C-alpha cells in the first residue's frame, strides 16, 4: 500500500516534468526537466522493485542513474561550446 502511494506520487512527478520538457522555452529548461525525469525514474525503479517483491531492480536504478548523468553532461557540453570534443584551452584561445 505505501509503495503504491509513493509510486503514484512519482508518476505525477514524471508527468509534470514531462510537461515542462515539452513546454520549456529554452534548451536548458528541457535539460533540467530531463534531469528531474531521470531522478524520478531512478526512484520509481527502486519503488517498483519493492512493490513487486523483487529488489533486484535496484541494480537497474543505479545503472540508469549513471547513464543519466553522462547523458546530461554530454548534451550540456554540446550546447555550451558547440562541440563535443572541445576542451577549455581551445575555448580560451578562440577569438
Amino acid at each position: 500500500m505505501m509503495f503504491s502511494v509513493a509510486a503514484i506520487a512519482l508518476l505525477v512527478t514524471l508527468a509534470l516534468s514531462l510537461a515542462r520538457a515539452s513546454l520549456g522555452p529554452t534548451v536548458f529548461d528541457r535539460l533540467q526537466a530531463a534531469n528531474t525525469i531521470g531522478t524520478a525514474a531512478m526512484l520509481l525503479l527502486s519503488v517498483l522493485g519493492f512493490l513487486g517483491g523483487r529488489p533486484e531492480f535496484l541494480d537497474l536504478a543505479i545503472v540508469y542513474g549513471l547513464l543519466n548523468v553522462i547523458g546530461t553532461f554530454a548534451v550540456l557540453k554540446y550546447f555550451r561550446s558547440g562541440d563535443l570534443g572541445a576542451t577549455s584551452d581551445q575555448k580560451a584561445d578562440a577569438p
Partner: protein
Amino acid sequence: MSALVEGLSWLSLVLGGFFCMVGALGLLRMPDFFTRMHAASVVDTLGAGLILLGLMLQAGWTLVAVKLFFLGLLIFFVSPTATHALARASLERGLKPLLAPREDASSKP
C-alpha cells in the same frame, strides 16, 4: 518488523512522494529558468532522500539497504554537480535571471 519502523517507513515514503510532487509542480509553474532549477532541486534532495530512507527502513540490514545507500550517495554527489554545470552553461549562453536588478537603475542608495 516492529510497528515503529513500519510507521516511520510509511511517513518517509509519503512525505518523500509529497516533496517530489511539490518540486515537479515548481518546475512546471515557476516563471524563470533559474527559479525552476531551484524548485527542481527539491526532488533531488528531500524527495529522493526521504523515499530512499523509507525503502531502507523496509529493507532492514541487508544487501538491499547497501544498494539503496549507494543509490542515495550517487544522487547526493551527482545532482548538485549537474545543476551547477547547467547554471554555468546557461549563464555563459547569455540567459539572465528574470528578476535580477538592472545595473543602470537608480536602485543604489
